[in-house]
């Protein structure tokens, strides 16, 4: 209609009148529409309140039909050989509905005369009470014995608001060995509840008190949880179920089959002895993670029915920080394990040829500052092969200086250094791949050429996760074809038994020349044959490739308590080792970090040897013994 309006000064008055009339017509139409919609509502009310009244009245009255969620079984988690890492068992819990109880403390004291309630149970209950908004019921005791059940049943009339419920419990049979990678479940807190609400998943969690909090339990929550079933039950006026009217059974969560090898994981975990550190082993041809160790671990079973404050405090204040997943979130300077990548960069960018030699007098001078080699006097004439096998620092000081920081950063980003790998558990640290841009962003400072020198031997700002280091050496082992590391192999649909692979992920082909990779691989084999790793790998029944590394610890990390007796140890160097084997057809690639121990060759390489021996030969490690003298190592 608007298009038909024209300006016509002569009939402006009439126009206004016309407009008003038009407006009133519109208003009348709108009013008619309102009236019609109200009639529609009235019709709906008539339908519900007169036509369907009988039926709905019955539902509301005879009823009271209660819709009860039926919690699904959580999927189980097994390793590549079917060994169980997480499963469920059923048990009885004693639960209190706080809303129906006036004096909780008095009630609990009285309950304690019937069933045993330890101070630990009491504290845990208080903690749960604070966290939850007093809806539903909270467990005061779990895993009741038959005798306790009988005793309570006889005394039940004394405890309104207290009930025994059958529940499924999560159990982690392997305990601390898999604590970081499998993770654990815990009670759903308010924040998680809000999030479920927002994602529209809250309905599926009615009746469910637990969800995955860390590790695979967290990242595969959607698969593991399953679909909640529904039971329509008739309840009497007191709210007790009288009979079931209809039932939609729950659908159990899917099972996870991992790439991890439980026995290998155990060997690797135990190989650390009392030391702290991390190990990640990867199958180069698939990116499947074979072992994922962070030492020390903790018992994930403590978290399953709500951890008690005492254990919680111990775990959180321990100077060993057992809750930190070192393999995933710990970042360490790579030390000399960085050298093979530097060598590859030099070949790729044409800065060195394999034959070219430099003179290593035991130090490198730059800007009046002397950068010392770890071996006094140096190695004399050093070519690329020797630089890796003997771990010459001078060679890489010079190389770093020749390449410049940005070329190094550009090349290293190829291997994923300083970037999250995208592994299928949450909480990954990115680490630091230093560059001019990074330094300016981080410190608002320009890069000094002198800082580039020590980057060449994996020190300085360099900081990578053991996972990144393992993924990188796996890419070398696999001749430059890189996979995204993944822990889960298949997800098994519990109904159809169909297995879906998690990662048929397209590999990334790194832009590298095969002959350059071959040169570096040859040197890595040399390390374990005649270099810094030779002593540890003497007598191995397979050909392996490796590189030792030692990373200086600069200072005490933030948030750590000052414990005098340990300071000395905390300042010791981290030992590192990267390896793959068999050299001709690599089946396994790994990275090891041993915190505050010393030389890589002495402390990290033996762990790698045990892991490789077990994986390739099935050999269980002999009781630990140490070498007498130090290997020379960058």
């Amino acid at each position, binding site marked *: *209609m*608007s*298009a*038909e*309006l*024209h*300006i016509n000064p002569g009939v*402006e008055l009439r126009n206004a009148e016309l*407009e008003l009339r*038009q*407006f*009133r017509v*519109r*208003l009348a139409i*709108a*009013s008619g529409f*309102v*009236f019609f*919609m*109200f009639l*529609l*509502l*009235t019709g*709906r*009310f*008539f339908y*519900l*309140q*007169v036509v*369907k*009244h009988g*039926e*709905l*009245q019955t*539902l*509301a*009255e005879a009823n*009271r039909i209660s*819709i009860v*969620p039926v919690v699904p079984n959580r999927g189980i988690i097994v390793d590549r050989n079917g060994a169980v890492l997480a499963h469920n068992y059923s048990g009885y819990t004693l639960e209190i509905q706080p809303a129906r109880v006036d004096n909780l403390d008095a009630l609990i004291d009285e309950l304690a005369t019937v069933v045993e309630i330890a101070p630990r149970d009491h504290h845990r209950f208080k903690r749960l009470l604070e966290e939850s908004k007093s809806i539903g019921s909270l467990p005061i005791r779990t895993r009741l014995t038959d005798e306790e059940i009988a005793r309570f049943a006889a005394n039940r009339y004394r405890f309104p608001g207290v009930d025994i419920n059958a529940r499924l419990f999560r159990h982690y049979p392997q305990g601390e060995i898999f604590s970081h990678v499998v993770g654990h479940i815990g009670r759903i807190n308010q924040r998680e509840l*809000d*999030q479920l*609400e*927002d*994602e*529209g998943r*809250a*309905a*599926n969690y*009615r009746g469910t008190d637990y969800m995955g909090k860390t590790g695979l339990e967290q990242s595969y929550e959607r698969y593991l949880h399953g679909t*909640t079933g*529904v039971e*329509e039950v008739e309840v009497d006026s007191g709210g007790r179920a009288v009979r079931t009217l209809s039932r939609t059974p729950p659908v159990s969560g899917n099972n996870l089959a991992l790439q991890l090898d439980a026995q290998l994981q155990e060997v690797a975990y135990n190989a650390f002895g009392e030391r702290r550190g991390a190990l990640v082993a990867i199958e180069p041809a698939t990116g499947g993670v074979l072992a994922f160790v962070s030492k020390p671990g903790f018992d994930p079973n403590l978290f399953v029915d709500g951890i008690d404050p005492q254990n919680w405090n111990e775990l959180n204040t321990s100077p060993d920080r057992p809750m930190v997943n070192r393999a995933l979130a710990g970042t360490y300077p790579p030390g000399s394990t960085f050298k093979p990548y530097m060598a590859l960069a030099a070949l790729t960018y044409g800065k060195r040829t394999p034959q070219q030699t430099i003179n290593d007098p035991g130090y490198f001078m730059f800007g009046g500052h002397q950068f010392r080699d770890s071996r006094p006097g140096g190695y004399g004439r050093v070519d690329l092969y020797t630089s890796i096998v003997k771990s010459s620092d001078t060679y890489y000081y010079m190389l770093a200086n020749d390449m410049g920081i940005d070329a190094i950063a550009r090349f290293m980003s190829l291997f994923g250094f300083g970037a999250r790998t995208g592994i299928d558990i949450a909480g990954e640290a990115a680490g630091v791949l230093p560059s001019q841009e990074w330094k300016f962003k981080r410190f608002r400072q320009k890069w000094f050429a002198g800082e580039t020198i020590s980057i060449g031997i994996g020190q300085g700002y360099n900081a990578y996760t053991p996972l990144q280091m393992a993924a990188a050496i796996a890419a070398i082992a696999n001749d430059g074809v890189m996979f995204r590391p993944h822990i889960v192999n298949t997800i098994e649909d519990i109904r159809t038994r169909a297995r879906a692979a998690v990662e048929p992920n397209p590999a990334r082909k790194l832009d590298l020349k095969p002959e350059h990779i071959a040169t570096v691989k040859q040197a890595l084999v040399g390390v374990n044959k005649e270099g810094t790793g030779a002593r540890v790998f003497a007598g191995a029944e397979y050909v392996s490739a490796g590189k030792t590394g030692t990373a200086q610890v600069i200072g005490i990390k933030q948030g750590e308590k000052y414990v005098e007796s340990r300071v000395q140890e905390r300042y010791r160097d981290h030992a590192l080792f990267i390896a793959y084997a068999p050299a001709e057809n690599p089946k396994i690639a790994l990275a090891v970090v041993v915190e505050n121990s010393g030389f890589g060759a002495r402390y990290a390489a033996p762990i790698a040897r045990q892991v490789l021996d077990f994986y390739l030969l099935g050999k269980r490690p002999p009781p630990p013994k140490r070498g007498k003298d130090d290997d020379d190592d960058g």
Partner: protein
Amino acid sequence: MTANPLIRRAEYFLTRHVDGLLLALVLALMALGLAVLFSASNASVARVSAQFANMLVALGVMWAFANIPPHYLARLALPLYALGVTLLVCVALFGDVVHGARRWLDLGVTRIQPSELMKIAVPLALAWYFDRYEAALRLRNFAVATVMLAVPVYLIARQPDLGTALLIAASGFFVLFLAGLSWRIITGLAVAGAASLPLVWSALHDYQRQRILTLIDPTQDPLGSGYHTIQSTIAVGSGGLFGKGWLNGTQTHLDFIPERTTDFIFAVYSEEFGLIGNVALLAVLLLVIGRGALITANAPTLFTRLLAGAVTLTFFIYVFVNMGMVSGILPVVGIPLPLISYGGTALVSICLGFGILMSIATHKKLVQT
């Protein structure tokens, strides 16, 4: 009458811009609201007094706006609109996320929800815009107005706050419609809207889709949003012709109705007062809308006509969407039943609208001179 002149002057001051009939209807609905709330909250005096306090504030706002002459409002239209859009953009950029939706803006002192402001700013701005080009409304003007409407609606819908976006879109559309948007375009829009449904569907969040699917078959999702619909229809239906009587609703008192003091309070009312009560309530609400329509029809300028029309029809949308949702013919969106549901914000914004209606009804003589 020979009353004290001071009292007469005070009385005049208080009532000269108040529309008696509208005020009577609003007060009646508020009283009913308190009675239903008393039942819905299981006789919680605290809730009822809190709502009573909300009502006093809302009535104060209503009186204040009734005393603002419409041409002042016209002057405020554009700045308010610009402020609102700016705030919405700020919300999108650095708003606080509460329950996954980005709706709040932290001003350091207090947090505000700019989408509430837009409920009034949008119809105000559109009415002002059409009034300005009154002499020759062209297609171009409608296009500009559509953009003025679409920007805030889009920003609010992506927060996501579908309920508020819907209300604002409706109020804006009413202004366009009353301003004379051509039927051809309305038909075209309707057809285009129907055609783009699959597109809209794919843009919806999973939970929004779920709500629509649930509407078609509530038993699909008996633990989630279907639960609300199932229980509220049972409540409404079991009320029957005469209802179970005040404070006697079993669905309500056995805790079956979710959100029973706020968005689903109508289920409580319906269960306790039955079809008779529902029809009576609809009649009162229809009277309110009728009064609004009358004020609209007699409004002196295009600006006041459009504004009054938009306010009146938005009130209708509140009522219809809420009752439709409770009785299971519309999806569950968070829209309260005006003047009855518990909650201060919606109450104030509804009463602000009534204040504007009263202002338009009582200021016209002064303007027409």
